[in-house]
């Protein structure tokens, strides 16, 4: 009777141990699978995000030794391959330094519309023009101008014109 009881207790202990082992095994397997399911997408997503050049980034402040891009712009200024443009708060004056689109000539333009403008460009030869107040919005009048230019034989000229474009003085 005692031997039978001992044997029964042994069996119960062994079965309990097997049950515990099976439970632990199942738990470990499910944890491993869960970790795999969570970790693999995270690692793949981070790797893709880091490797993907088409992503966009937003930051409060960026510091770098050198920044390269096709275009930079801020609220009122921009820099691209062709020109740097800086505008005033109320968009009534602006400065452009760069290349005009047609013809593609280097130019520096300071404008306070419609009161005055300074143009400096190399259009076949160097040319600088100071323009005064124009006839106003919607008119073709440029306003009086002072021009520094070169004739076709490269002789220098300074020409003063009235608001209608008529020469009022010139040198030499």
């Amino acid at each position: 009777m005692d031997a039978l009881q001992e044997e029964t207790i042994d069996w119960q202990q062994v079965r309990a141990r097997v049950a515990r082992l099976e439970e632990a095994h199942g738990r470990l397997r499910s944890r491993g699978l869960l970790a795999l399911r969570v970790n693999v997408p995270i690692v793949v997503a981070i790797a893709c995000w880091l490797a993907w050049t088409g992503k966009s980034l937003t930051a409060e402040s960026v510091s770098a030794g050198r920044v390269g891009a096709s275009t930079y712009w801020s609220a009122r200024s921009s820099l691209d391959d062709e020109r740097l443009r800086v505008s005033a708060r109320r968009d009534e004056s602006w400065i452009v330094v760069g290349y005009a689109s047609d013809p593609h000539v280097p130019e520096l333009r300071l404008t306070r519309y419609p009161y005055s403008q300074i143009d400096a460009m190399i259009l076949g030869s160097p040319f600088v023009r100071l323009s005064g107040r124009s006839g106003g919005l919607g008119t073709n009048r440029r306003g009086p101008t002072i021009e520094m230019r070169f004739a076709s034989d490269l002789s220098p000229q300074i020409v003063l014109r009235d608001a209608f474009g008529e020469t009022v003085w010139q040198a030499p």
Partner: protein
Amino acid sequence: MDEIAVDARRWRDVNDRVNRLEAANDQLKRRTLVAAGLNGLLLIGLACWLAWPGKTLTSKLLTAREISAESIVTPYAALGPDELLLLSSFDPSSIRLSTADPQHPSVTLQHDEHGRIVARLGDGPFLGLYAGGRSADPDRPPQIELSIDANDSAPKIVMRDVNGRVIWHAP
């Protein structure tokens, strides 16, 4: 005798099963430890990469309230600490705004074939228009010069021909 044999077989089976389960559990634990180690390494690597200031970062669009850099470059333009340089993609021409020489901040528009315009502040303001291109003497005076002499504060306008001879001046 048969009962004893059955019992012995059952014991063996159970013993084998326990051994297999223990081995499998040990293996799973080892794998979990290796995976945890790898994950830790990956996370530390990513954190180091993100925190490392010397890295390069490529993005299609970057938006920031403030960008601080030693230089900003595009394929044909460069903005440095004391200079903006714009090169033409079509012509041999360039535009340079420079304070590299702090005594003489300047703006230069140059076309290698057609001439250049220089606006410069030194001891006095200077505006010079130079006609002609690369073949012309780089040290020649401008054909049109507006300047204020630093010594006597006298404003002057001078026009010269291509040989440098004064052909008109004011006053």
